[in-house]
C-alpha cells in the first residue's frame, strides 16, 4: 500500500494564516506570508485519479467552492514548510490528518531551517501534544 499526501488549501482568503503570520512576526520571525493547508496522508491501493476523485467528492474533506486540492509529490514537507500532527493520532491509520504551515519572507522566499524551527518551537507546535515534521 502506498502512502500519498494531498494538501487541501483554501482558495478564499485564509484568516487563520494571516493571524498566524502576524503572531509569528510579533515574535521576531521574519515572515511576511503564511500558507496553511489541511493535509491528508492516505494509505491506499487506488490510482491517483481515483483517490483524487474520492477526496473531491467527499464534502466533509473538500468543497470546490472554497478549496483547491494538490497532490504533494514527496511524502515530506517542502521548503519552508512544517507539518504538525497530534501525538495521539495513530501513525498507521489509513487516513492521517495533519496541518501544513508554509512560511515565506518579505522577498517571497521560503523560510530557512533555524527560523522555521523557532516558529515551530515557539508557536506552531506544542510539543506536549503535537509533533512537528520538517
Amino acid at each position, binding site marked *: 500500500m502506498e502512502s500519498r499526501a494531498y494538501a487541501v488549501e483554501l482558495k478564499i482568503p485564509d484568516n487563520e494564516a494571516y493571524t498566524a503570520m502576524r*503572531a509569528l512576526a510579533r515574535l521576531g520571525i521574519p515572515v511576511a506570508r503564511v500558507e496553511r493547508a489541511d493535509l491528508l496522508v492516505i494509505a491506499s491501493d487506488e490510482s491517483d485519479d481515483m483517490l483524487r476523485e474520492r477526496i473531491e467528492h467527499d464534502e466533509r474533506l473538500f468543497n470546490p467552492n472554497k478549496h483547491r486540492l494538490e497532490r504533494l509529490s514527496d511524502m515530506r514537507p517542502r521548503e519552508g514548510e512544517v507539518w504538525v500532527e497530534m501525538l495521539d493520532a495513530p501513525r498507521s491509520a489509513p487516513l492521517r490528518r495533519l496541518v501544513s504551515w508554509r512560511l515565506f519572507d518579505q522577498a517571497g522566499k521560503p523560510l530557512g531551517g533555524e527560523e522555521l524551527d523557532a516558529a515551530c518551537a515557539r*508557536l506552531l507546535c*506544542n510539543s506536549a501534544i503535537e509533533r512537528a515534521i520538517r
Partner: protein
Amino acid sequence: MKARVAVLVFPGTNSEVETRDLLVDCGADARIVHWSEAASLAYYDAFVLPGGFAYEDRIRAGAIAAHDAMLDAVIEGSEAGKLVMGICNGAQILLEAGLAPGTGAIRRPTAAFTHNIQGHFICQRVLLRRDAAAERCAIAAALPQDALIPAWAAHGQGRLAASSEHLEEIERGGYVVFRYADVRGATGAHLAPQGSALGAAALTNRRGNVLALMPHPERDAWNFNHLDRREGEDVLAPSGGSALFESFVTALERM
C-alpha cells in the same frame, strides 16, 4: 485597601462581563482590563483570565495569547505569588504560557487542553468536585470538602492531554484540583464529557496560586441561572457556581 483584581480581555475574549460581575458580587474590587491597557496590569494584585476565543483559537487555543504583552505581567505576578485564575480559554492560555501545571519552563507547555474527543464544541452542564486537599490550591481552599460545584462545559478544546510521563507527574504531584463528578460525587475519567485525561477539569501549579479551570462556574452562578435550585428568595443573588469565586475572594483577602 481592597485587593484589585484584573479581568483580562484579549482580542477575542467574550466572557469578561459576567466574570467581572461575579467577582464584584462576591466582594472583590474587580475591573476589566483591555489589551490596550496592558501597562496598567502591574498595579493589580490578582488576575483572572476569562473565557472566550482569544484570536479565535487560531493555530491552537490559547497559543497566540500566551505571547501577548498582558501575559508578561501575569507571569511576573504569578512568580511573585499573586493569585491567577484562568477559565476555559483563560485556562488554555495559562497552560500554553507554562503557568499551569508549571512543570516546565515559561512558554514551554508540558500539557494542553486540546480538541474534545467528539471533535467538536460541546455545551452541557457539569458538576465539579475538588479532588485535592484544601491547602493544595489557595484559590479553591475555602470550598467545603466534597462540595459539588455546578458549572457549564462550553468548549471545543477542553481535553487535558500530555505525555504519559507528564500525566503521571500531574497526578502524583496533586496538580489536578477539580475533577468532573456525578450527582453522588463520584469522579473518574469516564465522567469527563470531552475525554479529558485523569477526568481533570482544572489544574494548579506547584505553589498553588494558579488555577486553570476549563468549565464555567460563572455561567451557573446566580439564582436565575438555576431557578429550580435557587438558594433563598432573591433570584438575583449569587449561588451555585459562585462558591468558587467566593473562595477566590477569601484567598485574596487572606494574602
